[in-house]
């Protein structure tokens, strides 16, 4: 064999000759039917589990979460979603003084850059909710339920994504050349009058608001009600009194405000949809399994064992 002949002859490798060993799966009754039954048998219990758990989230035990809900509020509108400057919120000095164009028309006010700029920040929810327990039917004194304002934002948001402008001066000093959003009553560094460290861009209420909702009806975490060490339920049965300082207008766009108190289970909050969906899909799968079994049984002679004549 000469050298030239050898070089021109294609290599005899499994790859080049398309003979790579391969697994050739095939939708046979032996694999499809059991799969359908197994899916059915797994999904239905999961669904029931979710459904039961979800419906059991009633007793106010453990940590209680206090949410505010808004409806008909389009936090997912494109023009709204992009109207923010993440660099500014990350504490970037130049972005602080010269916010991104995306923030228009909430970029500057009276020749001063707005901090935080943009429509999202501008429309921040600013009602104040207070929860009181009516201690006794006869006794009209109200007991203020202590609401925790910190620990409601994601860790990464609080520590990575949102940062105050760097510096050792006071927050007011650091925000000195900026102005607050038009709709706000107070500047960003005075959002939490009670907690000095919960101010500026890292104010947790602010962070929660800035994480825009996926759908026009949404809820956001407002406060935590921590479980006390004693054996009492976090929120004992009784009459409660909710005090709302109404700042936030929703009537104009036909919106609704809600306040929700909830505990969570292993799979989160109350959510009947998932449970029902699991039960449905599981049942369909099981039923299909039965139908296919019947069909397969009926037609087996005609196809599976049929002789193939080539």
């Amino acid at each position, binding site marked *: 064999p000469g050298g030239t002949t050898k070089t021109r002859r294609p290599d005899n490798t499994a790859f080049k000759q398309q003979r790579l060993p391969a697994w050739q799966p095939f939708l046979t009754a032996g694999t499809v039917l059991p799969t359908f039954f197994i899916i059915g048998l797994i999904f239905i219990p999961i669904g029931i589990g979710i459904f039961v758990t979800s419906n059991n989230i009633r007793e106010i035990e453990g940590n209680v979460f206090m949410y505010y809900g808004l409806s008909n509020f389009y936090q997912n509108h494109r023009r709204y979603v992009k109207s923010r400057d993440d660099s500014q919120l990350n504490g970037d000095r130049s972005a602080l003084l010269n916010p991104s164009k995306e923030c228009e028309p909430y970029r500057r006010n009276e020749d001063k850059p707005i901090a935080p700029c943009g429509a999202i920040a501008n429309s921040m929810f600013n009602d104040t909710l207070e929860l009181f327990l009516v201690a006794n039917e006869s006794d009209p004194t109200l007991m203020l339920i202590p609401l925790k304002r910190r620990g409601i934002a*994601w860790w990464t948001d609080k520590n990575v*994504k949102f940062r105050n402008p760097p510096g050792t001066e006071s927050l007011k000093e650091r925000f000195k050349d900026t102005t607050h959003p038009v709709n706000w009553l107070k500047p960003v560094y005075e959002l939490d009058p009670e907690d000095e460290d919960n101010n500026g861009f890292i104010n947790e209420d602010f962070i929660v608001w800035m994480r825009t909702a996926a759908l026009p009806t949404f809820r956001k975490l407002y406060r935590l009600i921590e479980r006390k060490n004693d054996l009492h339920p976090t929120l004992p049965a009784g009459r409660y009194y909710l005090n709302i300082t109404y700042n936030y207008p929703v009537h104009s766009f036909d919106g609704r405000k809600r306040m929700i108190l909830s505990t969570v289970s292993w*799979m989160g909050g109350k959510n009947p*949809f998932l449970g029902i969906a699991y039960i449905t899909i599981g049942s369909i799968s099981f039923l299909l399994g039965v139908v296919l079994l019947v069909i397969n049984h009926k037609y087996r002679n005609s196809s599976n064992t049929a002789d193939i004549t080539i």
Partner: protein
Amino acid sequence: MFCSKKKLLEVERIVKANDREYNEKFQYADNRIHTSKYNILTFLPINLFEQFQRVANAYFLFLLILQLIPEISSLTWFTTIVPLVLVITMTAVKDATDDYFRHKSDNQVNNRQSEVIIDSKLQNEKWMNVKVGDIVKLENNQFVAADLLLLSSSEPHGLCYIETAELDGETNLKVRHALSVTSELGADISRLARFDGIVVCEAPNNKLDKFMGVLSWKDSKHSLDNQKIILRGCILRNTSWCFGMVIFAGPDTKLMQNSGKTKFKRTSIDRLMNTLVLWIFGFLVCLGIILAIGNSIWENQVGGQFRTFLFWSEGEKSSVFSGFLTFWSYIIILNTVVPISLYVSVEVIRLGHSYFINWDRKMYYSGKATPAEARTTTLNEELGQIEYIFSDKTGTLTQNIMTFKKCSINGKIYGEVHDDVERKKEITKKKESVDFSVRSQAKGTFQLFDHSLMESIKLGDPQVHEFLRLLALCHTVMSEENNAGQLIYQVQSPDEGALVTAARNFGFIFKSRTPETITIEELGTLVTYQLLAFLDFNNIRKRMSVIVRNPAGQIKLYSKGADTILFEKLHPSNEGLLSLTSDHLSEFAGEGLRTLAIAYRELDDKYFQEWHKMLEDANAAMDKRDERISGLYEEIESDLMLLGATAIEDKLQEGVIETVTSLSLANIKIWILTGDKQETAINIGYACNMLTDDMNDVFVISGNTAVEVREELRKAKENLFGQNRSFSNGHVVSENKQQLELDSVVEETITGDYALVINGHSLAHALESDVKKDLLELACLCKTVVCCRVTPLQKAQVVELVKKHRNAVTLAIGDGANDVSMIKSAHIGVGISGQEGLQAVLASDYSFAQFRYLQRLLLVHGRWSYFRMCKFLCYFFYKNFAFTLVHFWFGFFCGFSAQTVYDQWFITLFNIVYTSLPVLAMGIFDQDVSDQNSMDCPQLYEPGQLNLLFNKRKFFICVAHGIYTSLVLFFIPFGAFYNMVGEDGQHVADYQSFAVTMATSLVIVVSVQIALDTSYWTVINHVFIWGSIATYFSILFAMHSNGIYEVFPNQFPFVGNAWHSLNQKCIWLIILLTTVASVIPVVTFRFLKMHLYPSLSDQIRWWQKAQKKAKPTSRRRPQTRRSSSRRSGYSFAHQEGYGELITSGKNMRVKNPPPTSGLEKTLYNSTSWIENLCKKTTDTVNSFSQDKAVKL
């Protein structure tokens, strides 16, 4: 391009020899050829211009511009520009390399050397510098550089021999004849340099067999015809030198004029894809309009009240205008339905398939060390849809080697190998052939595995001697001795060559001839025969005879010809031998051999003289001359004594019969288009099973006028339907009605096999506009169509005809330059490589060395390519509909604001990174059935022809599947997110988590889907599928990591999201639910289809699986047996008129006089009257016999 230079349409060409200045006035094209498209400077602008002419590229450019408008921009610019730049660069690189190779081949041809007379000297000049009017010297076996007027040659009478295989595929030599005035110039350079004749001739055209012109020289005019012209692409043979004057150069030559324009070939899938893409754009616009209207209404009803939070942008203060902008925004978002990666992926898959073709060892021909080559990488899937194959004959189906296989002498067969199987094997192994070494002149390559003939010769069997003597005498072969003293035969048909060579090998050596004598060596002794008459071959006679006087003074007529004709001329005493020989002939024909019957007659002197006188009279007669002569021929060729028969094998290429049979089983129709004679073509048709005895009828169309042709076509059709009618139901409807019905349901009404044979003359008429339909209708009803004597252009026209009116995918296969135009016009052109000429291969899309590889190319590679491409497209459209339509559903919940559901990065990477490789792996490696089974079961090919695997219906199913998936993908998370709270209480339904959940579900759903679609899981598929999912998660986490956020806070706002979201059990529950819900219907549907309506491929997969479980058995297909009892006619590739050349002595060398003995001299002198006679006879025969083909 060269044509742009030409300003005026040339009507007439005037060329003056040796006068470049004079010729320059006319600005004729020079001899340089250009096939390349760009040079370095023009590459970028032209290429970019061409690329943006493609609708897809222009569309993406348009999208890119839209995205730069801030009010509209719903996606960042990089989502479009990254893929676009990628695509444009890749295409540009590919175009550049292609053009580089074209430059290279152009250069190679343009720089060939030729000898030109410049300044009265013979100088070497590159081909490209040869100008019109130059005088060029050619040497033996050289390629002709341009179209030349032959001036003089080394041979007597200014003859020269050329091989035109590159032009018309005929390998027999042709004679060209210089004008006697110019042939006198000889090789005298100074005289040639002074030659100043002016040629006025027709403008460049593509007619290979016509030339009209006048040479004016020395105050006299000489008319010029095709006999004086040597065309570019020919090879000079058997002529040591010749001089010619350049008439047409470069692009004006007939070769280049015939080569046709290079067309950009597109596959039918391409066209379908383009239509679908247009539909999708339409669909997209509809979606855009719906959403835009939604937006207007929303802005009006809801947005207006929401102004406090949701401002108007600058300049957009009306809901209608907002709707208008939204429309464009949605066009941008939804464009991912047809991502640019579709086009890239399709190209990549085709490239992969092309490599598999190049790498296939089963298409590698070790004999010539040539692997198969996919020269065009964009047509592979069309190989799986071929309905018509147009094949050249010589060099493609046949090897163009004639071998003397067998003979029957006096009722005994020689050359037969006995039926003993054991021995047969032994013989083929040992090659225990007859030892010819005793014969000094024997050709080394000749092999006949039979000793008995040799023994008979030695024993001196007179019949055997007479048989061989006949073979040595009755022919038109010319002999010549080369420098080494070896005897060389010049044959004008390879059949005759085979016969004369056979006689030579058995000791009857044809030595030389003069116009009046033939000298042969009979077993060592030289014998000179006097040639008294030469009864030349023609198509009607189908035989040729010579009348010779041997040295003993006996006059004998030796005749060979078609058995059917010759048997009628036999003396009644031959009856016994006749039936015996007849059986033998049937046997030979059954083996596909070409047969001839051989007979002789002894004439007494007196009878011959009388006959001869009559012939002279007939020649002199004015009226009915032809008939009288042919009558005389008939008369003397009677009462013949049968000697036997010969059987010659026109060697088919290996495996032709199997390939043809298998391709017919795959429902592919094969047409033979050949420049050869009708008889030869038909013979080969029978030899390779395309024509069979079982056929109900073989129609032969050979009319000479349009009317005749149409009449014949109509008749054939009537005949066909008539037979058919009587076959099927027998009731006859009124003719007109029947005719109408036929047009619509022709194919179903035909039972039985028919074949059509049509020759070049008729075809020319049949291709005219109104007859065309008749031809096509008839041809498509026939199982086999044979077109003979067709020009290269006609080949292309036939292909075009079928292509245009049948809407079928065509493939043309050939080996010579005469096939180039056909190869170019067919959907797919295949060139046979490893031959001398390269033109066919250069013009082809695929090339390989043997016809039989066509089977593997179509049934394995083509089928797989089609199957894979269809699967790929189905999946791709599904995937992108599922991916994109989610935005549409989301539109209803985000105020129709063109907010994307996913992260921008996800949109950018989804098609290029996350989901590209698994589907590419499927598109490149998938197999449903193994290659062996594809070959064994040609019926598997049918879905491709019927376009079953990907068509509009399939497309709608894919789209529906995609829409369903997008619904599931959107509404399950939607339902779940409606009131969702994370397990830590914090994680609530925010947009980013929603996006991550949907993206993850989507990636998993489409991965599961590709896993279901992949039927052949190689390691690569595993790596790609699992790898893609892994890649998705790694990139997701990387992009949501703190590190990258710190660097680009504005580009990666999803920081921490992956970690937070994917930590939630309920997110995973949603993903699981979404996946199962979107896959269940598909599995159910496929399962049902496979069990209730299994396709052939499904069945074979079942069977394959069962086989694998049992044990691997190697199956062999039963050998297809040929059973043709057809006898060949005088099926020489023979031309009449050679007798004239021989008897006139024009083609004989003066310097090589025949061995003259005293006896011969006297004979020579005494028989000068015979010479005259012969001349006349042949003249008459010549004029009488038009090249009229006869129905066999």
